[in-house]
C-alpha cells in the first residue's frame, strides 16, 4: 500500500520522460518526435496530438489504397512506390522510425518488382504502424495524466 502523499508528481514526470526514452531506444520514434513536442506551446497546446491524429487518418487512407493496388493485376509497382513515398514522408515527419524503415524496404521491393517481397513487407509496415499507434496511445495517456496533474496544482 503506497502512501499517496509521499509519491510525487515528479515521479510521473520522470515516468513520462522515461517512457519517451524507452520509445526512442526501442526505435519506435526518433528525434523528430521530440521536435514536435517542442513546438507545443500556449498557441498550439495540442500540436503533437493533432499531428499524430492527422498522420493516422492519412496513413489509413494510404494503406487502403495500397491494398487495392495490390489486389489488381498486373501489379502497378510505380503506383505502389508513389503511395509508399507519401507514407514514408508522413512517417518521417512525425519521427516514426520503424515505420519509415519498413516503407523504405517496401520501396526497394517495388523497384525490383518483387511482388512477394512487397506483400511481406506490406504486412510488416502494417504491423509497425499498428504497434506505433498502441505506443502513442499509451504515451498520450501518461501525458494526459501529467497534464491533469499540472492543471490540478
Amino acid at each position, binding site marked *: 500500500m503506497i502512501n499517496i502523499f*509521499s509519491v510525487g508528481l515528479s515521479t510521473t514526470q520522470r515516468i513520462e520522460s522515461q517512457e519517451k526514452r524507452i520509445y526512442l531506444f526501442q526505435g519506435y520514434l526518433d*528525434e523528430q518526435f521530440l521536435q*514536435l513536442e517542442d*513546438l507545443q506551446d500556449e498557441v498550439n497546446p495540442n500540436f503533437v496530438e493533432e499531428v499524430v491524429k492527422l498522420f493516422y487518418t492519412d496513413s489509413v487512407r494510404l494503406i487502403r489504397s495500397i491494398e487495392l493496388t495490390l489486389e489488381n493485376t498486373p501489379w502497378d509497382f510505380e503506383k505502389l512506390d508513389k503511395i509508399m513515398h507519401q507514407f514514408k514522408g508522413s512517417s518521417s515527419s*512525425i519521427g516514426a522510425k520503424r515505420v519509415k524503415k519498413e516503407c523504405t524496404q517496401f520501396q526497394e521491393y517495388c523497384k525490383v518488382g518483387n511482388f512477394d517481397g512487397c506483400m511481406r513487407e506490406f504486412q510488416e509496415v502494417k504491423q509497425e504502424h499498428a504497434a506505433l499507434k498502441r505506443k502513442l496511445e499509451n504515451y498520450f495517456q501518461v501525458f494526459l495524466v501529467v497534464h491533469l496533474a499540472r492543471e490540478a496544482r
Partner: protein
Amino acid sequence: MEYCNCFESPWPADELLMKYQYISDFFIALAYFSIPLELIYFVKKSAVFPYRWVLVQFGAFIVLCGATHLINLWTFTMHTRTVAVVMTTAKVLTAVVSCATALMLVHIIPDLLSVKTRELFLKNKAAELDREMGLIRTQEETGRHVRMLTHEIRSTLDRHTILKTTLVELGRTLGLEECALWMPTRTGLELHLSYTLRHQNPVGLTVPIQLPVINQVFNTSRAVKISPISPVARLRPAGQYMPGEVVAVRVPLLHLSNFQIHDWPELSTKRYALMVLMLPSDSARQWHVHELELVEVVADQVAVALSHAAILEESMRARDLLMEQNVALDLARREAETAVRARNDFLAVMNHEMRTPIHAIIALSSLLQETELSPEQRLMVETILKSSNLLATLINDVLDLSRLEDGSLQLEIGTFNLHSLFREVLNLIRPIAAVKKLSVTLSLSPDLTEHAAGDEKRLMQVLLNVVGNAIKFTKEGGISVSAFVANSDSLRDPRAPDFFPTHSDNHFYLRVEVKDTGSGINPQDIPKLFMKFVQSQPLATKNSGGSGLGLAICKRFVNLMEGHIWIESEGLGRGSTVIFIVKLGIPARLNDSKLPFLHKGPGNKVKLNFSGLKVVVMDDNSVGRMVTKGLLVHLGCDVLAVASGDECVRAVSYEHKVVFLDVSMAAVDSFEVAVRIREKFSKRSDRPFIVALTGNTDRMIKESCRKVGMDGVILKPVSVDKMRSVVSDLLEHGYLVESQ
C-alpha cells in the same frame, strides 16, 4: 668288316627287350633335349634370373646326357668304331659337365634356400605391417569418433540432450550392447539410473552409493572393468545369455558453487555420476586399451559439457528471476502511478470542490456581518467567519504542504522589491498589532539591495507566517523585524551543522530576525515547533487559531530557498526570536534564462524580428505540411500552407517573404514551381526567398536547387533552432550562410 668289341650276348638277342630299350633310350634322349629348350624358352621369357650361367651348365649337362643316350641307340646293333669314339667323347664330356654342375650346385643351393627364407621373412613382415596398419586405422577411426562425439556432446547446452547423445554416440562407436548413466540423487546417498541406451524409460532403479565397486570406480579417473553381475551392471532382467564385458567410468559433476570467484573447484568435494558400458553379450569381444581411453576422454568431455549446461541453466534462472523482478517492479510502478493519479485527482477535487463552498461561506458571512445584527447574532457570525477562514487556511496549507512534501513544488523566481515586501508584510499586520496594542518596528540594513531575485510570494508567506506567529503569541510589548545581508560568520548556526552556505557572485544570503516579547518557548519544545500538526500549547489553540502547519511550511519554503530557520528563546515568558536565512539572487547578474516578468511571451524563445512574417509552405503530404507549418507558427510566422504547385504559384504574393518547397514530393516537380515563382516576380526585391526542404542528402539535389535559382536547401528533419537560424540568415544576409 672288323670285329666289334662288343660282347657276345650271353643269351640270344631278345628282340623284344632290345626293342624296349631302344624305344626308352629314344624317349629319354627326346626328353633330355626338350628340357633345355623349355628352360631356355622360359628363362628368355622371365626378365630376372640371376643364375644364367648355371642354367647354361645345366643345359649343357642335359644335352650331353641326351646325346649320350641318343648315341646309345646306335650301339645296340653292330656299330663302327666312329660311333664308339663319338660315344666315348660324349660320355667324357657329360662326365666333365655333370661334375662341374654338381660342384656348382653345392655353391648355389644354399643361396636358393636362403632366398626362400628371406621370402618367408618378408611375407611375415608384410603381414605384421598390415596388422599395424589395421590398428592405426582403427585408432584414427576412434580418434575421429572421439572428435565427433565431443562435437555432438558440446554442440548442445541442454543437459538431457548432452547425456542422451553421449550414450547414443558411444553405443554406436563402440558397438555396445547397453550403455547407462547413473546420477547421484539429491541426498547424495544413492545413485539413480537416469539414462539408458536401449530402454526408453528406465524404471526407477537406485543403488546405494557406498558399494565397493562404485567406490573403486570413483577413486580413479580411468575406466575400470567391473563384474557383469554387480548391481550397477544389472540393467536388464537376468537372461540366459552370458553377459559381455562391462566397463564403468566416473563422470565428474561440477556444481556452480564449486566455482568461487578466486578458487578453482576442489577435487575432493566432487560429485560423480557413473557411466556403465556393456559389450554385446554373445560376442567374444574384449575391451581394448584404445576403447577404454576413448571412454575416459568422453567422460571428461561430458563433464565439461554438463558444467557448461549447468552454468547456462543458472544464468537462465537468474534471468528469469530478473524478469520476474522486472515484472514486479513494473507492477509497483504502475501502482505508484495509479496512486499518484488518485492523489492528484483527490487534490484537484479538494482544490476546487472544497474551496468553493468555503468561499461561499466566507463571502456570505462577511456580507452578513455588514447587516443589522443583534450582539448574539454578531458573535455567531464572527465565529462562523473565523471558523471558515481557519478551514480555508487549513485546506490551503494542506495542499501546499503535500506539494511541498513530495518535492514537486518549485519556486517561481522573479525579481522583486525586497524593501517593499517587508513594508507590505508589516502593513498587513499593523492593524492587528494596533488592536492588540503591540508595537511593530522594522529595520532594514543599508547594504540590503532594493531588488532581489527569488520567489516573492513564498518569501512573503514565510515572513507573514513568522510575523503573524510573533503577534499571535505576544500579549504586550511589541515585535521587531530586522533584515540584513548575512556574512559568513552569521551564516553558520552551531545548531545546524549540516547547513553549509556557499558563496557566489550571483547570490547573497538574507538574514531576518523577528523578535517578540511574547510568551516565549520552552527550549525543550523548540524542535517540535517545526513539525507538522504539533502545538506546543494545546489549550491555547482555541485562541491562537493556528493550524499547526505554519512553521512546518515555513521551514519547507526556507529549505527550498537553500536556507535555514530556527528559533531562539530564553524560556517561557521571556519572548522568542525567530531567525531565518534564505538565499536570494542579485538581479543585476542573473542569467537570461530567468528573465523577469516583464518579458512575458510564449516561453523563453527570443523571437528576433520575424513575428508575423508571412511565409508559404508547399507540401503535398498533409502530415509534413502540418509539421512544417507548426514549426513556423511556433516561431511566430504567419503561415499559408498549400498542397500543390499551382496553388502555390497562385497564392504567392509580394507580401510573402519566404516560400518553403518540399522537394521530396513525388507528384509535383518543385523545381518547376520555383522557376514559375521566379517568373511571376519581375523585380528581384518583390520576389520571396525560395527554400527547398528535402530529406535527401544527395549532392545532386543541392546542385539542382541552385540551378533553378533557389535560395537555399534545408535538410529534413528540421529543428526549431535550425529553422530559426535559417530564416534569420535569409532575412539578414539574403541567402543562406550555410546551405544545410
